[in-house]
Every structure is written in structure tokens, then in C-alpha cells.
């Protein structure tokens, strides 16, 4: 019985066989074209993740990172990290930082996108200028803001004093009350252009007839936004928010040069903690364990946002 079934195709004449071999050739072609991508992602992302997870389960004083096999396997790093009350603080600060960046960056990005979608003279020059912060290296952004936010000579203090919002200079980066705000501002500045870019692109895809039809039906400006613009923006906006959000959640380039995680850990997010554990205290196992915990948290947040992301990627 089974014999008959498995042999049935070969009794057929050649055409279906040739068609199958063409499909097979296509498959081989498709996969070989994809090989460089898979190699790049596999060798430099999958393998490092494997090493990091391996490292997170190793005990003892780890000095020889190239031969991890010699160190005993243990759950001690996770036990230490999870019972350490500081972890909750790090997670909380990561969330504050992420939300603190994404919300204003999205608001600025959306406002600019709506503005740049209108016709006005000089728009061709205004648009690249408005998107410009995206092209500035993060470290240069940090340098500029560390100077502008300087406690004694910073221009931000000077301007705020001039308009009477503050009386005394504020030590933005050196005081634990203001340090988080001070690292959020440059990050917002760097990230809003991505939202503008994505939203301008989405706005341009809306057919003009839709607005005309809405106007003919007597829709107000707000109604046009609510019922024509926003539905077209929702999916790309959700995807951009998630991509930026997970990016900011593990962002390092702004916080580390500006405050190094201080003062008093006020700006120690998970990403900064991972770095400091490894390169300040040389506790590699703990650093890797926090890293894995960070990945799990970010993954969980990603899954929670999963539905809107799938819509955006369709």
C-alpha cells in the first residue's frame, strides 16, 4: 500500500518531475541569496547571544573569557541578580527613560510630519534640516548637550534664568533629581526625526481625494485628521513606536558619556548596568545575567505590542 503511494509520482511521465526540479532550483537559489544575510546575523548575533547565555551560567572569578568551559555551571548569577533590589530600580529607570523619550519624540515627529506634509515655500530646504539630528552621531549629540546643560556655564541655565523660569543655576547632569531629564532630552532630539520620516512617508501615501471627499461632506479639520489621516498613520506609527521603543530601552550612547549612570545611579538603566558590571567591576557572569534578563523583558514587551506590530509589517 505504502509502496504504491510513494512510487506513484515516478510512474508519471517527465513533465511534473521537471517542474519539481525547477522549483527545487528556485529554492536553492532563494536560500543561497539569503545565505550572506543569515551568515551575518548568525555569526555576529546568534553566536554572541549563545556566548552571553553561556557566560551568564558560569560561576567563579571569570578571567579567561575565551575558555568558558573551565568555570563551573551555576544559577548563582541569576539568583544574585534577581534578589538584588537594585534590579527593580534598573528596570524602572529603563522604562522611565524609554517612555520619557518615545512620547515626546513621537509628538514632535508627528507635529513636524503634519507640517511638512503641507505645501509652502522653502519646504525642500526645511525638510532635510528638520530631519538633520538623525544624521548626527550620538556621541556628538551627547557632547553638545553636556556643554549646553553644564551646571555653571551652560546656555540652558542662562536662557532659563533670562526668562525667569529659574533663579539659581541647575546642575542638570550632576543632581540626581534632574539627571534623568537631562539624558532624556538629547535622546529625544536624536530620535524624533525617525518618526517624522516614517510619518511623512505614510502621509504622502494618502490619496488627496479622500480629503476632498471629506471636505465635501463638511468634515472639520479635526474630523479630517481623526477619520482620514489617523487611520492611515496608525499602523506605521505603531511599528515606528515599537522599533524606536525597543531601541531606546537598550540605548547606551547617550547616558554613558553624559553621566555614566550616576549620580547615585539616578540614570543607571539596564544597558548601563550591564556595561558597568562588566567593565567597572569585572563581574562578567552577573553582567551577562542582567543582559539575558533585559532581553527577556524586552521580548515580553515586544510580544505585548505584537498585534500592532504585525499590522504594521503585514
Amino acid at each position, binding site marked *: 500500500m505504502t509502496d504504491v503511494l510513494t512510487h506513484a509520482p515516478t510512474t508519471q511521465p517527465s513533465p511534473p518531475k521537471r517542474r519539481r526540479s525547477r522549483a527545487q532550483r528556485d529554492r536553492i537559489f532563494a536560500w543561497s541569496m539569503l545565505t550572506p*544575510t543569515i551568515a*551575518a546575523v548568525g555569526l555576529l548575533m546568534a553566536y*554572541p547571544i549563545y556566548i552571553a547565555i553561556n557566560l551568564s551560567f558560569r560561576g567563579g572569578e571569570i578571567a579567561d573569557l*575565551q575558555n568558558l568551559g573551565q568555570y563551573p555551571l551555576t544559577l548563582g548569577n541569576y539568583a544574585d541578580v534577581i534578589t538584588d533590589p537594585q534590579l527593580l530600580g534598573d528596570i524602572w529607570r529603563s522604562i522611565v527613560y524609554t517612555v520619557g523619550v518615545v512620547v515626546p519624540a513621537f509628538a514632535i515627529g508627528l507635529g513636524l510630519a503634519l507640517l511638512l506634509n503641507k505645501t509652502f515655500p522653502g519646504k525642500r530646504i526645511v525638510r532635510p534640516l528638520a530631519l538633520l539630528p538623525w544624521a548626527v552621531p550620538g556621541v556628538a549629540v551627547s557632547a553638545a548637550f553636556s*556643554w549646553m546643560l553644564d551646571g555653571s*556655564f551652560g546656555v540652558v541655565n542662562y536662557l532659563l534664568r533670562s526668562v525667569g523660569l529659574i533663579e539659581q543655576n541647575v546642575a542638570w547632569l550632576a543632581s540626581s533629581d534632574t539627571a534623568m531629564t537631562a539624558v532624556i532630552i538629547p535622546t529625544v532630539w536624536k530620535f524624533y526625526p525617525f518618526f517624522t520620516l516614517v510619518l511623512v512617508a505614510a502621509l504622502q*501615501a494618502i490619496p488627496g481625494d479622500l480629503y476632498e471627499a471629506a471636505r465635501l461632506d463638511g468634515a472639520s479639520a479635526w474630523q479630517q485628521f481623526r477619520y482620514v489621516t489617523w487611520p492611515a498613520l496608525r499602523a506605521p506609527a505603531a511599528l515606528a513606536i515599537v522599533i524606536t521603543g525597543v531601541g531606546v530601552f537598550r540605548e547606551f550612547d547617550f547616558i554613558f558619556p553624559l553621566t555614566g549612570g550616576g549620580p547615585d545611579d539616578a540614570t543607571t538603566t539596564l544597558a548601563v548596568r550591564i556595561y558597568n558590571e562588566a567593565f567597572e567591576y569585572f563581574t562578567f557572569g552577573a553582567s551577562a545575567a542582567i543582559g539575558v534578563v533585559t532581553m527577556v523583558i524586552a521580548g515580553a514587551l515586544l510580544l505585548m505590542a505584537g498585534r500592532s506590530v504585525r499590522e504594521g509589517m503585514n
Partner: protein
Amino acid sequence: MSKVLSRGRTPQQWGLLAISLAVLVVLLFPVYWMIMTSVVPSKELLTSSPPLVPPADSASLDAYGEVLESRPIGLWLWNSTLVTLGTALISIVISTLGGYSLSRFRTKAQQAMGFTLLFSRMLPGTLLIIPVFVIFASAGMINNLWAVILVNVAATVPFTTWLMKGFVDAIPAEIEEAAMIDGCGRLRTLWQVIVPLLRPGLATTFTYACILAWGDFLFARTLMPNPSDWTITVGIASFIGEFSVDWSGLMAAGIMSMVPMLILFVFLEPFLVKGMASGSVKG
């Protein structure tokens, strides 16, 4: 000509321009302040009420000369250029092949790629640098620019492959079928028929890869301990932690690190919006 004139400008349009300019003044103030700081001598800046425009009698480009003399800025910029161009060119090739494959052949890889994109964004760079360092140390590639290039390629490729898939999706399959019926092989069809149509996509991928690689700090810092191998971002970061910061010099270095990206951006920005519209993030 008369058509352009007859279209005219309404007061409302001038109003929008005024709003845009006001917004730009606020948004670009940090860039202005960097330029301003770089042309004013440090001692005039270290007061509680710094001048808001460069005083005519003391403004100069001295800070640029000094910082170029005291640090190997030129070398760092050159290293950054090599890393950036290497990353961008390799990423373009890899992601064009990968994007074409994902667009034209429906495989399981396609879905997996979307998640790989998000997953790669999620990975803390600070977690990856220890293993990445270990890998390149075993390969004897510390202080080797190729190490930085390869890591940046890996960081760029998930997103750019996804982006390129979107661009290939927008090209009707009939075009290449016609070429293949004429006897063109698959690779030749890709090179001679598809690639020329992908130009906006290539420009978008190039810009994205350049911005990412040029801005990279963590990987270059970890893999390049030797100061003469530093990229410009690592060089700039080395200023910030110093005991007394030379702000004019630091801002001059910052401006020099921005200029190449600004030039690139001005040329390629029009493609970016089109790219995003037809590419990955369409609704």
C-alpha cells in the same frame, strides 16, 4: 513659467513657512550652539552670561586648528570613513540579495526575518560586546577595522534587508519574467534589470547604513583599544571625560564629525522619504 507664477503663494503658505522657521530655530539650536561655541575662545564662554552670537572681534576658527594639531582628528575621520563605507557597501550587497530572495520566493525565512529585525533592535549592545570581543580576540582581529565593519554589518543587515524586500515588492515580477524568457539567467536579471530599478532603495539602504556605522561608538570603542585606530566617535568621547574640558575644541571636533553625514544627508534625503513610503514601513 506662467503656470508657476499663477499658482502663487497664499498668505497661509507664508504663515506655514514662518511656523516652520520658528520650529527649526528651536530644533536646530543645539547645532547652532555647537558652531557658536567652536568659533568663540573658551575663556569668553566660561561666564554665567555667555554671548548668544559670536562677538565679531574675537570669533575665529582657531579652535579647529588647535584641535587638529593636538589630536589625530584627521586619522580618526579617515578610520570612520573606512568603517562607514565598508559597512555600507557590504550591507547593500547582502541586503539586496537577501531582500530579493525574501520578496520573490515565499519561504519561512520571510516571517522569521521580520522578527529578527525587531529582535536585533532589542539586543542590548552592551551585552553583545563581551562575546563580540571574545570572538574577535580569538580570531586575532582586535585593532582591526574589519572587525568593526563586520559587527556594524551585522547590526545593519536585518533592517536593510527588510527595507530592500519592500523595494523589490514594488517592482512587478513580469519585468524579470520577460527578461528571463529572453534567456537572461536569474543573477544577470537581478543585476541588469532589477538593480537599476532599485536605485531609491539602494540610496535609502546606503544612507541608513552610513548613519548607523558612522555613529557607532560602543563596538569601535571595544574592538579598537589603540588610539590611532579609533573612529571619530571614540575620539570625541575621550574628550568628554577629561578633567577640564576644552569646550571650543570639543565642539569643533563635533562639527567635523557631523559634516560628512550632513553632506550625505542633503544629497540622499529626498530618497529617504520615498524609500520609507514604498519600503518596509508602509501601512
